């Protein structure tokens, strides 16, 4: 986050709680986003019958999400090189609901009905006759990348593999087909998400607006249950930086204050609580996930926030 001016960065100054005005806030995104040239990232939507899940298998997409948009996701797959540990995991990268909404709502990505797309494509492939699975490769003991092509050719294939994703899918052809026939709207995604969880439509809106409010300030964001919060915030990519804050969406009790403040301080963080600037703004009338609701997600968040930490005395 935040311009490379060096020295300390005065977040207190830049993000005065009550005076949030979207136009006056500089985008603190590390990279200025430019959507004109790049095609949208296709977000594979999985498990449409249960809770819908967006899982990314394409490493190029993972790269773009992280480097360009500061979207982290959570790796949930087994790392085949080291399959007996849980510290370093691999694809798929699971995006959580706020990341999904943010990417789609900002126009960086679109949702794809993955299972139907892939089944239809497989059918088509099979109808064309001979398949080329290409899943047998040459594997050398040391680093395979260091071998020259000729050296590799001279050896017999000895390894059978499962790739992360379908390597042909980024053909122009594929993109058009997906966009046309397999796109899932944000509305449908949210509808099934809300149906399969205990979140209400108002909560989804309010929490998403919180996420957006934080994203605008350039933070990197992860889920926060490990620390008793809804989110954790990082001042930069968590690969390099310790997290700053634990975010609580609903702070309702002083007990939470004591617990949260104490916990945060013991792990060198603080607690951030967020609320609406004007509560009447909450037009909680619609119970349905309709177009109006989807439009309301795109509104500028009007939020105020406070940071809590132990005082060090008492």
């Amino acid at each position, binding site marked *: 986050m935040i311009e490379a001016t*060096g020295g300390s960065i005065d977040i207190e100054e830049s993000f005065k709680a009550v005076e949030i005005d979207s136009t006056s806030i500089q985008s603190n995104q590390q990279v200025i986003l430019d959507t004109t040239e790049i095609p949208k990232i296709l977000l594979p939507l999985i498990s449409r019958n249960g809770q819908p899940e967006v899982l990314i298998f394409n490493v190029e997409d993972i790269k773009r999400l992280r480097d360009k948009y500061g979207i982290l996701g959570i790796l949930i797959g087994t790392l085949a090189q080291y399959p007996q540990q849980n510290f370093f995991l691999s694809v798929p990268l699971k995006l959580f609901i706020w990341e999904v909404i943010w990417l789609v709502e900002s126009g960086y990505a679109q949702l794809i009905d993955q299972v139907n797309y892939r089944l239809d494509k497989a059918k088509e492939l099979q109808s064309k006759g001979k398949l080329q699975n290409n899943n047998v490769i040459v594997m050398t003991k040391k680093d395979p990348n260091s071998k020259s092509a000729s050296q590799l050719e001279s050896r017999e294939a000895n390894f059978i593999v499962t790739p992360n994703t379908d390597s042909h899918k980024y053909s122009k052809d594929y993109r058009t087909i997906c966009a046309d026939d397999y796109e899932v709207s944000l509305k449908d995604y949210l509808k099934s998400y809300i149906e399969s969880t205990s979140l209400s439509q108002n909560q989804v809106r309010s929490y998403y607006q919180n996420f957006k409010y934080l994203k605008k300030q350039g933070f990197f964001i992860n889920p926060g*249950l490990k*620390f008793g919060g809804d989110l954790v915030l990082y001042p930069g990519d968590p690969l390099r930086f310790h997290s700053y804050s634990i975010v609580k969406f609903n702070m309702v009790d002083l007990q939470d204050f004591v617990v949260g403040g*104490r916990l945060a301080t013991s792990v060198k963080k603080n607690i951030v609580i967020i609320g609406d600037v004007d509560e009447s703004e909450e037009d909680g009338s619609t119970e349905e996930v309709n177009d109006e609701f989807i439009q309301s997600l795109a509104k500028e968040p009007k939020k105020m926030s406070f940071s809590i930490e132990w005082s060090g005395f008492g």
Partner: protein
Amino acid sequence: MAKRNNKQQLNKIYANALPVTLSSEKYGIALPNLFPHNPISWLFYLVRLVQVNTLYSVPQSTVELVNVKYEDSIFKVTDEESIAKLWRSGFFGKGTLSRSEPTWKERTINRLNLEENEANVVSMEEVTSKRRDERKKFKTERSKLQDLELKERKGDISADEAIQLENLRNVVPNLRSANFKPGFGNDNKDTVIRLEDLELIESNILIKNLEFLQLQAIEVFFLKFALNVVQVSNLTMKQLFYECCLLVENSPSPNVTNKFILDYVVYHHYRSLGWCVRSGVKFGCDQLLYKRGPPFTHAEYCILIIPNDGKEKYDWFEMAAKARVIGTVKKSFVLVYVDFPTQAKFDLLWNSEEYEDEGQRFHDILHSYKVTEVLYRRWAPSKTRD
């Protein structure tokens, strides 16, 4: 203040588990052993029993009740002897200006160098404040170090600064590990007397003790109902109970799930099992259980009280936060669900005029509650595999 490391001394000071005087303590008497297969021992026992009851009056019948003042929604004990009794016999109450046992007076005399200043006595509060000073120093130095490191990385560091940086790199880690150990006394501490202190002293003598022992509502009611050792202002037992309920929630008569009642039920449960029970507010729970009491051991259990009303009261975030705080201080987390009677049954007992003794009323009311304990522990699968 007693020497804390002297276990025997501690045992002597805190010999009584509750502020109740035992006949064995007062008269040095005991009943003889009974052996099931030896009828003689039965007879002997019986004779002795009658003897005890005719020769000795029950100690508690002659003990004066402790006066508790109820003011501004606070239960106060101001009399020094009473404070000592309640603190030393079961660790009831808390000094308002101390961490647990009231020591403000001694600390103030010490701090202001007044009369009867015992040197070389360092209280817990002083240890803490000293350690915080050290911590502050560490932080200042570290922040200097970080500034210089940044300069170095950017390549605009002067020669002088480079030397300073090297120096700080050696010094800072030592500062971090430096731990203040009690016992050095007040070596370099100057006596600073503030305007605020002047009101307290007259010709080098402390004239005001601002501290009193504050009792929690559950403690007061236990001392009244279970042990009958206190008198709270002019309140009857029933009035006291009602006042305690009002502290939490305004209602014309107590609600069956009033937090005070649930808290009391749990408090009484653990007290009757011999635990020392104190407030768990610092750890975000309701109560702490000590095997014996603060000077002896750490609290081992943190209690969270939950009405068993079928609701899913807490979300995972709240539970995770509490569990983590409790884990940090190496205590165990216990959820105590409380079953309660119907409001109608409660009201019946509450309003009944059948009781000639209030203790019996509350016996019946409280007996209609029930506790269920559930233990919450983090599981680390990587550590339990083998």
